[in-house]
């Protein structure tokens, strides 16, 4: 058995067990609970009055902007992870500044980007 498999095989089993647990309880609820559906009961909740229109209408573009900014910054956080792990060993070999400066330049560029977004108002929810 390879060590990789030994480390990640449990995840598969635990995920399956999580599905089994939740499935079991939801099935039990299905088995024990009463079943008398009614059109009014199955209607969506809208404060007691009959529901009007479709709930899945268009929603504000702000959410898309947040998602785009998130993508940018998340990719960059992922870049930071290997750098952060390696910094300690680089330092112990006396190469601390050599690993620090490239990331400082990279983060500096990102800081400029964040500043630009800020000034353009992309970070303001209410305009």
């Amino acid at each position, binding site marked *: 058995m390879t060590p990789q498999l030994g480390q990640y095989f449990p995840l598969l*089993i635990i995920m399956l067990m999580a*599905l089994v647990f939740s*499935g079991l309880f939801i099935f039990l609820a299905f088995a024990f609970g009463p079943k008398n559906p009614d059109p009014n009961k199955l209607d969506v909740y809208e404060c007691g009055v009959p529901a009007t229109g479709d709930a899945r209408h268009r929603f504000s573009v702000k959410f898309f902007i947040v998602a785009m900014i998130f993508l940018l910054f998340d990719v960059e*956080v992922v870049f930071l*992870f290997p750098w952060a792990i390696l910094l300690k060993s680089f330092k112990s070999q006396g190469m601390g500044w050599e690993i*620090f400066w490239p990331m400082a330049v990279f983060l500096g560029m990102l800081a400029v980007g964040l500043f630009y977004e800020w000034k353009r108002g992309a970070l303001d929810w209410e305009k």
Partner: protein
Amino acid sequence: MEQLAITIHENYLWGAPLWAVNLIVMFGASAVVLMLFVAPFAGITSFVERRIAARIQDRIGPNRVGPQGILQFLADGIKSLMKEDLIPTDADKPLFILAPYLVFLGMFTTFVAIPFSSKLIVSDLNVGLLFIFATSAITAVGLVMAGWGSGSKWSMLGGMRAAAQIISYEIPTGLAALCVILLAGSLSLQTIIAGQGAYPWQWYLFNNPFNPLAFFILLASLVAEGNRAPFDLPEAESELVSGYNTEYSGMRFLFIFFAEWANLYIIGALVTVLFLGGWQIPVGVSEWAGGVASWFPQVLQFLTFFLKVLVFVFLIIQLRWTLPRVRMDQLMEICWKYLVPVAFVCVMGVALWMIIWPEGLPWMTYLLTAVAGLIVAYYCYRVIWQLRNTKATLEFNPFV
């Protein structure tokens, strides 16, 4: 356990290799043990939260089922088991049905990488921290699915808010965690804990002046990711009915809330592992306990870890019932205009600190520890003062 695996292998699964059967039996058992830990924890936390909320709001809270009402969570569980399982006609059925499974899956799988003591861990992954961030993102997917799939306007708004909030706060979480990864040089949670000591001045929290800041950012953004007040916009009761879980009933509803309360443990555990020394106990105590019995140090480590987690669970509950809810624009502003830039500064600050003072500055560590000690002492003093002051009004008077 070994014997059971061999029995199953010989009698039922001749085709499968023995090591696979062994692993299945071992981790199936650990999943059951985890469930037996997580389910009562989430249940009792829900009860404790209701009692604390009642205490803060000058009420009594649930006190009928069992001694002081501690069995209330069992009663609630049985009650939701007997409820009708409703699926609205407008719902997108596959999404609606799948959502609670995903929410529970994301919460439960996270427990794989969380250590309980030096030996008590399901699997010490070498990418543990990344794994935890990844699995908690599954929960976010579940919440968005619940919001979209319900076909209700309240759910839809809640789901959208949950998506925006959780992805925004993922950035400061990751950046604040980086401050510790820099110091530990590893993503494995056990290695991170091993790099710290039992005493406060050996924790990563007080290693340099940037880490207390990162600790605050991590705690705030984890609370926001767990949809807890003051950041509980996605399920804001007073404006969105109940947000993404408006249309859920019975057991499905219970699973979404189960995940939320179990998530409190995950928040506390992450903070404890990264900044507060995890399960570390003093070497002398560990040696003494090892002399008593080989399992005794593990128990002490588990209790140490659990106690630290409970402190944070209590703190988060207290936050929920003390602070008012922030607005959506304030929520986004806190994240992008304050937490993210400050977290960037923290990461670069810790990196600089490590390059200039690789061994750390002892006087700085002791200074930070002393300041933190004073803050904690003042907090405890205020809580006790508050409890004493409100005691008189709590006494039951039948004539008023």
